Every structure is written in structure tokens, then in C-alpha cells.
């Protein structure tokens, strides 16, 4: 007779009798994967622009037309007064001011050079940055058009110009959903796995059932394994649901094999669940366990490479991400989904995860004490 069998039987019964867990497992992935990718769009649209036009010339009109027709900018104010435009920024109505000085057109023709002024509301850093960049690109384009129109045909540019064309490998249309959805799926199973396992043993502590378990000859190893396996299976089910939704709603079919994803996920889940159980053995009550797991999740997510770019972090932060399992899985997920990597391509992160899994679970078994 194997005691593990009875523990598993008991754990599964408890899980399936808990309506909250079932809801979390089935409803959470659906909502997160359907709604979040739509919201988590990297492109900045609807930048509110305020234009101060003191020139009122054909050239300035054309430039303004070009800006407003780009879909990125929304004209909120058009005036000839900078102070009025500034009030717009103060009231958070405008994100950007572009000022075209008097004599803009005249200077451009006469001196072959003209100045304009950009003021950016930097409260929202990303929006300000991207907005200014977009605007600069538009102005540059306009500048080129203007030069071409002005130059006599047949003559080459007087000044050499480097023109860049780029092509996007692995995601040709730069569909952000292709890299967001797999990433969000990783966050999702991390969240579910960590929280469910973190509150599990601690709940037995709170209800007092652990006392009754501790006086039995049950082995620690069996007890922890009995907690780990059901959540491991649930985690794989959530991934399956997630991959199905990714296909159904976004048409995402991994270039690589589903098998590769599952192999990595199987090891990854051991890391996350082990971490949860470790929290569970140290925490005194569910509140503590939730707080600790929330804190860890926050770091994992923000340093995971989904919303922030790991390569642009300072070096110490990049070192921290080396201990972040989420970063590994997001990386692997993207490689498999977008690039078609196979098992041999991901063997390094896989090995690292395996080591993580062994260390953390061993630690969890050791730190769970049947006596105090």
C-alpha cells in the first residue's frame, strides 16, 4: 500500500469540492487571455497634441495635416498662442505642443532652414518619449518630401543621406499579440500555481488539520509530494486551456512543437509549486502566505521581460533576472512559439529550471517540520 495514493485521493477530492479553485482554473485564463492582450498594446495611440501655428502658411498647413492624419495624434487645440497651449498641458488635456514660429515657410525657402519647437508633457514617460519620437519621424519625412519637391529632377542629393529599411524576423507584421499572449500565459500559470500552492499547507495549519496529520506516521516527502502533484496537473491543464485560447482567439499556433512547451512547462511548474510550498511551510497563516507570494509575483512580473526589457536593465538587475523563473519561461515560450525552437535549442534554460526545481523542492521538504 502506498500512502501517497491516499494523500493524492484526498487532495483531489478537496480541490474538486472547492468551487473557488475550479473557477480560478477555468475562468481566470479565459478572461486574462482574452482581455489583457488587447489592453497591453505597446503602440501609443491617441496622443493629444496642441498646435501653436503662428505662420498660417501652406507649408505649416501641410505639416499639420500630415501630423493629424497619422492616426497617432489627436488634435485637441489649435491656436496662435503658446500660453493657451501650455494651459492645456497644465490641465493634462494635451501631451505635446508643437509650435511653428512666424516666418516658418519664408525661412525654409529663403535660408533653406527653419525651426520649430516641441514641448512634451513628461508625466507619462512612455507616452512623452514615443510621442516625441513619432513626431520627429513625421517631421523628418515631411522634410524629405519637401526637399525632393524642391530639388531639380535629375540632380542627386547634395548631402548624403542614409535611409533605413528594416524587416521583422519571426514576427513579420510586428503583431504585438504574438509575443504578448504567450507571455501572459506564462504569467497566468505562475500566478495560479504560486498562489494555490502557497496557501495550501498554510490552510491546513490554520484549520488545524496539520496537527492531526503530524501525529501520524506519514512521511514529509509523501505529504509534500501529495500537495505538489495535484497542482502540477492543474497547471498543465491551465496551460492547455491557454494554448487553446491563443489558437482560437489569436490564431497563434507555435512554430515549434507543443511537446517542447509542455516539457518546459512541466519542469517550470515544479519550480513555481515548490516555491509556493516553501512559502507555505514558513508562513503562519494564509494572509502572510498571500502577501509573500504577491510580493514575489510582482518582482517576477516586472523583471520577467514581458512588460520591461531585460537587456536594457542595469547589470545588477539583469543578474536578478537570472533567478527569475518567469523570465526563463517567457523567453522559451517566445522562442518556441515565434521562432520554432526545439528541445535542443532550449536545453540550457531547461537545465537551469531543473536545478531550480530540485533545490527549491528539497528545501520545501526540509523546512516542513512535523514538530516544532
Amino acid at each position, binding site marked *: 500500500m502506498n*500512502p501517497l495514493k*491516499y*494523500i493524492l485521493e484526498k487532495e483531489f*477530492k*478537496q480541490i474538486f469540492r472547492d468551487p473557488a479553485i475550479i473557477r480560478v482554473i477555468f475562468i481566470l485564463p479565459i478572461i486574462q487571455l482574452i482581455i489583457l492582450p488587447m489592453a497591453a498594446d505597446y503602440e501609443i495611440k491617441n496622443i493629444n497634441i496642441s498646435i501653436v501655428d503662428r505662420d498660417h502658411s501652406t507649408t505649416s498647413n501641410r505639416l499639420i495635416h500630415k501630423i493629424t492624419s497619422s492616426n497617432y495624434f489627436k488634435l485637441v487645440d489649435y491656436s496662435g498662442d503658446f500660453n493657451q497651449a501650455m494651459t492645456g498641458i497644465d490641465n493634462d488635456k494635451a501631451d505635446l505642443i508643437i509650435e511653428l514660429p512666424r516666418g516658418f515657410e519664408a525661412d525654409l525657402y529663403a535660408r533653406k532652414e527653419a525651426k520649430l519647437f516641441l514641448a512634451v508633457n513628461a508625466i507619462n514617460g512612455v507616452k512623452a518619449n514615443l510621442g516625441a519620437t513619432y513626431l520627429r519621424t513625421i517631421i523628418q519625412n515631411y522634410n524629405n518630401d519637401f526637399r525632393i519637391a524642391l530639388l531639380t529632377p535629375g540632380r542627386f542629393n547634395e548631402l548624403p543621406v542614409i535611409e533605413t529599411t528594416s524587416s521583422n524576423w519571426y514576427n513579420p507584421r510586428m503583431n504585438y499579440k504574438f509575443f504578448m499572449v504567450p507571455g501572459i500565459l506564462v504569467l497566468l500559470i505562475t500566478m495560479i500555481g504560486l498562489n494555490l500552492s502557497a496557501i495550501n499547507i498554510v490552510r491546513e495549519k490554520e484549520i488545524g*488539520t496539520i*496537527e492531526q496529520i503530524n*501525529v501520524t*506516521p506519514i512521511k514529509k516527502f509523501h505529504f509534500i509530494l501529495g500537495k505538489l502533484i495535484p497542482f502540477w496537473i492543474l497547471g498543465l491543464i491551465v496551460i492547455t486551456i491557454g494554448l487553446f485560447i491563443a489558437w482560437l482567439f489569436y490564431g497563434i499556433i507555435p512554430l515549434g512543437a507543443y511537446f517542447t512547451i509542455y516539457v518546459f512547462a512541466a519542469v517550470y511548474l515544479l519550480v513555481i509549486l515548490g516555491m509556493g510550498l516553501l512559502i507555505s511551510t514558513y508562513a503562519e497563516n494564509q494572509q502572510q502566505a498571500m502577501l509573500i507570494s504577491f510580493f514575489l509575483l510582482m518582482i517576477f512580473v516586472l523583471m520577467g521581460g514581458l512588460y520591461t526589457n531585460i537587456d536594457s536593465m542595469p547589470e545588477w538587475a539583469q543578474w536578478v533576472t537570472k533567478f527569475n523563473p518567469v523570465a526563463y519561461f517567457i523567453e522559451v515560450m517566445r522562442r518556441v512559439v515565434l521562432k520554432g525552437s526545439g528541445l535542443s535549442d532550449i536545453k540550457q534554460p531547461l537545465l537551469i529550471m531543473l536545478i531550480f526545481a530540485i533545490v527549491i523542492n528539497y528545501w520545501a521538504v526540509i523546512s516542513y517540520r512535523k514538530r516544532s
Partner: protein
Amino acid sequence: MEKYHSEQASIVVSSVSKSYTSGKTVVKALDNISFEVEKGSLFGLIGPDGAGKTTLFRILTSLLLFDKGKALVDGFDVISGYKEIRKRIGYMPGRFSLYADLTVQENLNFFASIFETTIDENYDLIKGIYAQIEPFKNRRAGKLSGGMKQKLALSCALIHRPSVLFLDEPTTGVDAVSRKEFWDMLKGLKNEGITILVSTPYMDEANLCDKVALIQSGSILNIDTPHNITHTFSKTIYRIKGRDMQALLLQARQWDFAEQVYPFGEYHHAVIRQQSTELHFPEGVEASRIHPGIEDVFIDLMRNHDQ
């Protein structure tokens, strides 16, 4: 594993001390406690809340390490022989600690199987108790009444036929009828040869034990059979009754011949000072000398211990 051969004693506690540190203060939960429990006897641990009863139980059930002393259960040291001990003891903690989301039968089955036994194998032992909740065997444990929960907990603690049974305040919060029923069940288990250590804050339950230990603030004040405890008590006790009991209590506490007066059911009990020769009870007060009960002894012991 070294096994200590002791013919009669099933539980041996010698000079066990345990203190907790909470913040900067050290709380002594058990202070140099020693006692023995005979094999197959019903031993009561009587004491108020916070006396250290649960700490002692957790030590004996191998859940808690202690600072000093030695404790043996069924011949095994609770520190080094915890694995053996966990196979042969039954523990019913003070708080209901079975799985509320499993049914009665599932709980019992689960505990039977982790002890590598079955319900059928030991059905005869729990029959008297389990038969009463068997009609509800498909009900979730969390939905049972207090008395039924307690019977289920006892069944689960007994399912592997333990040689020593630890019951931590099993009757706290249980109605009078169920309490009586419960003690009858314990007598039945005693007849099966199981050693039982039971703790209770109710002094009236002391009479139902073979031997009792009165514990307070981590020390044992007295250990003896209930009979000996009452018969070796040397003080004289009167029970008094008047028209206005509340006024009488306050008045009686002023009497110089009364050492202590406390309410006791429909009477007050007055402990008489040893030197007093003449007792003058006021008019209208009905007073008669009684044999001291076990509660009287305990109240006296606890009072003297406090001073």
C-alpha cells in the same frame, strides 16, 4: 531503537520543562513536571485555561520539543522514538481538526489508510462510537453538529487501535448529555486496555478518572486518585444558603471564621479556618457541614498556589 521496559507505566514524564519566548518575555509553560500514567488507566489532567495542558499534550504526542527532562510514551522516548510513537498513539486535539470538506466516511477512511489499516479491521473498537454517526457517513464533516464532530474525531483517533489515547479538552463546549455520553465511551475504551490521558477544565469530570493531576501555571499541584484527594483533605467545609445569595456571599466573606467562601451551585461553600472553634452563622442562614468534593480541594489548592 531503545525501548524502556516498564511494566505498569504507559506514560512517564520526568522533570519536563518548556518555556516560550514571546518578544522579550519568557513564559514558562511547563515547570519541572513529573508524573506517570499506569497502563490501561484513565488519567485526568485538570487545570484552568493556560495551565500548560495543551503544551504537555503536544510534547507527549511528539509535536513539540522541550527544554529539559525526559518523557516516555509506551516505552519510547518522545524525542528519539517519535516515529514509533506516532504509530501507536491516537491524538484528538482540542480544536476540531478533521477535513471539513471530506465526508464522515472519507475522513475515517483517510486516517485508516495512512495508518495502513482499514475501517473493517478495527471496526469492533470504534463500533460503539461510530455507529452513532454512521447514518450520516456521507455528510461532510464540516456540516456535523458539535457532538457528532467529536465522535468522528474520536473514531479517527482510534481507527488504528492506538495503545495510548490523548484527548485534549474533548468535552469543552459540549452539552451536559453529550459530555456524560463521552465519558461512558472512554470507560469502554479503557476496558479495551487503552491508556487514556484526558485533559479538562471541568473539575466535576475529575471524579470519572482513575487518577487526576491538578495542573496550574505549568506546575502540578497534586496527583492522586479522586478518592484519596478528597479524603486526605483536612479542612472543614460548610455549605450555606440564604434568601439573598449574592448578599450572603459578600457578607460571608467578612466572617472571621471563614477562610474562603465561593458560590457552588445553589449553595455557597465556606472553608472554615482551622483555628476556629465556634461558628456563628447569622439568623436565616442555613448551614451544614459537608464532605469536601474534589472541586473544593482544587479550589483550595489553586488558591494557595497563587499566594
